[in-house]
């Protein structure tokens, strides 16, 4: 029978949002992927296993917290080179990374010196990772009904039909 859809209240959804535009995110994406790896992967694992956004609000909050911390660290140490980098990216609508290699190198060196972060090489962010969580694996995430019982095994002697196939014109 149809039941009510449970929704969380507005207070539970209140989180410190990252108020930042797309060029900034793309500029910081590679470092963000390697630094905030753990909470990101946990959130995605939760989302994909539970298939329900209401169950993953906690992990989502941790993702946001890590992102805020990440941007705060950048703002604290490498603000100028980062600003130059993302303004260069923002210049075009396609935000091609290959147009801004000089600024990228400057930003990478600054971040490596001050914070010790290494930019991940090509292909490292797309590697499949294993995530350890304390959350148990949900059973029946699709809330499917009980499966019907399988058919019983046919008893008796099985012989081919007497006059050939009753379905079509061939005789086997």
């Amino acid at each position, binding site marked *: *029978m*149809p*039941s*009510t*859809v449970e*929704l*969380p*209240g*507005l207070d539970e*959804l209140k*989180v410190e*949002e*990252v108020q930042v535009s797309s060029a900034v*995110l*793309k500029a910081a*994406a*590679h470092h*963000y*992927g*390697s630094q905030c790896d753990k*909470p*990101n*992967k946990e*959130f*995605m694992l939760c*989302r994909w296993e539970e*298939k*329900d*956004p*209401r169950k*993953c*609000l906690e*992990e*989502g909050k941790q*993702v*946001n917290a890590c*992102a805020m911390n990440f941007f705060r660290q950048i703002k604290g140490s490498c603000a100028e080179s980062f600003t130059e980098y993302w303004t260069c990216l923002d210049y075009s609508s396609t935000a*091609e*990374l*290959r147009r801004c290699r000089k600024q990228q190198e400057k930003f990478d060196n600054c971040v490596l010196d001050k914070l010790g972060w290494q930019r*991940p090489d*090509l*292909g490292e*962010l*797309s590697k499949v990772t294993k995530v350890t969580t304390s959350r148990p694996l949900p059973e029946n*995430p*699709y*809330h499917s009904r009980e499966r019907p019982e399988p058919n019983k095994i046919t008893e008796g002697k099985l012989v081919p039909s007497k006059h050939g196939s009753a379905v079509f014109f061939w005789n086997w």
Partner: protein
Amino acid sequence: MSLWRSCPVALIAESSAQLTLSFCCGLKKMAASKVKQDMPPPGGYGPVDYKRNLPKRGLSGYSMFGIGLGVMVFGYWRLFKWNRERRRLQIEDFEARLALMPLLQAEHDRRTLRIMRENLEEEAILMKDVPGWKIGESVYNTDRWVIPTSDELFNLRPREELLHTNLGFRWYV
């Protein structure tokens, strides 16, 4: 008339410089030397080049084919190299998207849930006096999370927001 016959035919074969003079033998002498005419240079014209002149020059056919083929091969090599570089750049772009996806997904989830919550509260206000209406009732027979349609989410909002959600990425409509 007898004067004509006395002029020998061989005189016609003489050089053209004296042709006019020899033609006038016996006739009244014209004042030819006094009139300024456009005459050929003294000594006549030089030898005229009339024989076939098709010099053998330039590359042979084979070498021209070879050069063309070489240029093509060089072009292909450059193309393949640049395509590999483009593949690497594409992987870099995809990795940037991969890295940002959890953040964007979390924000999207929160936004959806917020809109649904606001819709629920609006529904409670609007359908307060309708008999037999269960507020927040699911239209499906299941308990699982059904991804809400954009129509359902933006029902109570101006149409512009719905259009922006559905068509915002397009350049044309």
